[in-house]
C-alpha cells in the first residue's frame, strides 16, 4: 500500500453532557490509502458516525475532540481553526450523508447549489462552473445533466438526490470522501447502481473512501478493508473477506451469525443477548463483556488492540481460526 492519505491516531471524541461524559469515540486509529475503500461498521451508538463527523471537523458542543491526531496527506487537522478547516472541507475532504433531502437545500436549484459549492473554493465563471457541475453529475450517473441543473431537489427521486449529493462532494476532487450510510435510505435496485458507481469512482479518481454502514453485506461488496466498531472503539479490523470468513472478535462473530442470510429459513437466529451499552461512564474493561459468552476475569481490564499483519482484534479471548472448508 502506498503512503496513507488519511491517518487517524488514537482519536477521542467525547460529549460533555449534563448527565456526564459520553465517550462516543474513545481511541480510534486507522489509515486509508489513496483509492482505497474502507468500511466502518457498527450498530447505532457505536461511534461510527461521530468518527465521520470528527474527521470533517463537524463535532459541535457539548462534543469535543479530546485527543488524538488526524492527518490528511501528512497535514494535522486537529487544532485547525474553523476557517482553516473550512478551506479543506469540500475541497480535500468531503462527506455524503444518509438523507439527501436533509443535505440539499429545497429552495435552490441543483445548479445553484453546485455553483455555490464550486465558488466556495474556486473562482470560475458561471459558464465554467455549470460545465463542471454537469460533468460531475454525468459521472455519478445522472442522464442529461446539463438540462437538470435548473431542477429543484424535489424533482429528483431519492436515488438521484443521493447522486447529486455525491456529485457535490466530488466537485473539487477530494482526496478523502466520507460516506455515512449513503445507501441506507435507498431501494436495493438503486443501491446496487450507486455501489457499483462508487467503486468505479474510487478506482478512477484515487479518492479514498470511508464507507460508514451498519450493513456488513453492503460493505463486503464494496470495501477492501473492514473496521468493526463497538462502544466507541475499533474491536476488529482486517481485509473484509478474511474478517467475515474468520471473525476473531466474539462481537463480529455474533453479528454475522445473527444475520438471516447466514441461517436456514425458519430456524431461530443466533441472538447476541442484551443491548449496546450506554457510553455514559461505562464500567472499566471490555465494553462487550456483559454480552459475551467468552468473558472472564481478565475482561474487567481493557483489552488492547492486538495487531498482527493486516488483522487486529481487541479481545483477550479471540476466537481461534476456523479450518476453512
Amino acid at each position: 500500500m502506498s503512503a496513507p492519505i488519511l491517518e487517524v491516531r488514537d482519536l477521542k471524541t467525547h460529549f460533555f453532557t449534563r448527565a456526564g461524559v459520553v465517550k462516543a469515540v474513545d481511541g480510534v486509529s486507522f489509515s486509508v490509502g489513496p483509492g482505497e475503500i474502507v468500511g466502518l461498521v457498527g450498530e447505532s451508538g457505536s461511534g461510527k458516525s461521530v468518527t465521520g463527523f470528527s474527521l470533517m471537523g463537524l463535532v459541535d458542543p457539548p462534543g469535543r475532540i479530546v485527543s488524538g491526531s488526524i492527518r490528511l496527506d501528512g497535514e494535522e487537522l486537529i487544532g485547525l481553526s474553523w476557517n482553516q478547516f473550512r478551506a479543506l472541507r469540500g475541497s480535500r475532504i468531503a462527506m455524503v450523508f444518509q438523507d439527501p433531502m436533509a443535505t440539499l437545500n429545497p429552495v435552490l436549484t441543483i445548479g445553484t447549489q453546485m455553483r455555490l459549492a464550486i465558488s466556495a473554493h474556486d473562482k470560475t465563471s458561471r459558464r465554467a462552473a455549470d460545465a463542471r457541475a454537469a460533468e460531475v453529475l454525468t459521472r455519478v450517473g445522472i442522464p442529461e445533466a446539463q438540462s437538470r441543473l435548473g431542477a429543484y431537489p424535489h424533482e429528483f427521486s431519492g436515488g438521484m438526490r443521493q447522486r447529486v449529493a455525491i456529485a457535490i462532494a466530488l466537485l473539487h476532487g477530494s482526496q478523502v470522501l466520507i460516506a455515512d450510510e449513503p445507501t441506507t435510505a435507498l431501494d436495493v435496485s438503486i443501491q446496487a447502481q450507486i455501489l457499483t458507481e462508487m467503486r468505479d469512482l474510487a478506482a478512477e479518481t484515487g479518492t479514498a473512501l470511508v464507507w460508514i454502514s451498519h450493513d456488513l453485506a453492503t460493505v463486503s461488496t464494496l470495501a477492501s478493508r473492514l473496521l468493526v466498531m463497538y462502544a466507541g472503539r475499533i474491536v476488529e479490523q482486517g481485509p473484509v473477506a478474511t474478517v467475515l470468513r474468520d471473525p476473531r472478535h466474539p462481537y463480529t462473530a455474533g453479528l454475522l451469525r445473527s444475520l438471516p442470510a447466514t441461517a436456514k429459513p425458519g430456524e431461530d437466529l443466533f441472538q447476541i443477548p442484551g443491548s449496546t451499552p450506554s457510553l455514559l461512564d461505562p464500567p472499566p474493561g471490555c465494553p462487550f463483556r456483559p454480552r459475551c459468552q467468552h468473558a472472564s476475569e481478565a475482561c474487567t481490564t481493557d483489552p488492547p488492540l492486538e495487531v498482527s499483519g493486516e488483522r487486529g482484534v481487541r479481545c483477550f479471548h479471540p476466537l481461534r481460526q476456523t479450518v476453512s472448508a
Partner: protein
Amino acid sequence: MSALGDTGDGSLHPQGFVHVRDAHKHFGPQLTLGDRIAAKLGANVETRSVRAVDGVSLDIVRGETLGLVGESGCGKSTLGRMIAGILTPSSGSVAVDGAPVMADGKKIDTRVQMIFQDPFASLDPRMRIGDIIAEGPLAHGLTSKAEQAAYVAGYLERAGLDASLVRRFPHQFSGGQRQRIAIARALAMQPEVLVCDEPVASLDVSIQAQIINLFLALQRDLGLTLIFISHDLSVVRHLSDRVAVMYLGRIVEEGPAELVYTAPAHPYTKGLLASVPRLVLDETELVTLEAIEGEIPSPLSPPAGCNFNPRCPLAETRCVRDDPELRLVRPGHLAACHFAE
C-alpha cells in the same frame, strides 16, 4: 406448509383464510369545484390519481406466513393497510374467514391487527405501556378493569418483556423493546391475522435477530396468520412460507418462498434478487451487482402494457402492447410475465 394446487380457475386457495379480491386503492387529488371547472377549461390541473394498489388478489391460508416484498412505492404497505382494515379499498374486497374486514369505511373485524415500522411513532408517548396494551382489549370487552393487570402482564411476557414495566412510558424503552410493546399490544387483541409492516427495518442487526426470533416463536406457538411486509429480502425469506413480489401496485410474482428465491420466474424478481448485496467471503471475488436499469416509473402515469417493460431486459413489442396476466407457471407459483415459464 399448506398443500398447493391449481384449482383451474386461477385462484390458488379456495380454502384460504384471508381473501383479497381484485383490490384497488387509488389516491386521487382532492379537487374543488373550481379545480374541476378549470380542468374542463383546459387548465393544467392534476386530475390523475395514484394507483397505489391496482388490482391485487391474494388468498392466504390459515397459519401461513406470506411475505410481501417490493421497493418503495410498490403498494405493499397500502395493501397491508387494506388487509388490516385501516384503509378502505377503492374497489374490490378484503375478507377474513368469509367475513369482510370493513363495512361503511369502518373496521369491523378485530381479528386482524397490525404492527408498524416505527415503534417511536406508533406508541402514544403520553400513555403508560400498561394502558397502551389494555386500551383495545378493554374497549372490545376482551378483559375487564379488574383483570386488566394480569391480562397485560401475560401479553408483555409473551412479547419478551418484564411485566413489572407496565407503569413506564414508551420513551423509557429502546427501539427493540418498543417493538416488543407494539407486538404485545397487537397480541392483546387476540388476533388471528397479524399484518407486520417493516417491523424490524428500524432496528440494529443484533436487535433485529431478537425480534425475528420472537416472530418465529409466535408462528410456532400461536398459529397466527402473518402478512410480513418488508423490503429486506433475506428477512422475508427467513420468515415466510410464501412470498408475493409487488411492482407498481400489482403482484408480479407469487409462490412458495423457496421457489421464488431459487427459481424466480419474473425478470423483476430476478433483478431484485441480483441487486441484493451478499456477504463476500472470498477476497479474490470482485462482486458485480446486477442492478436493474432505470428507476421505478411514476405511479401517476404507469407505462403501457407490462408495468416493468421500460426496465426489463426481455422486453419486446408485445410487452408494450399487452399487459401480462398473473398466471400459473408451475404448481403454486404465479408470475405476470409473457416469458415466464
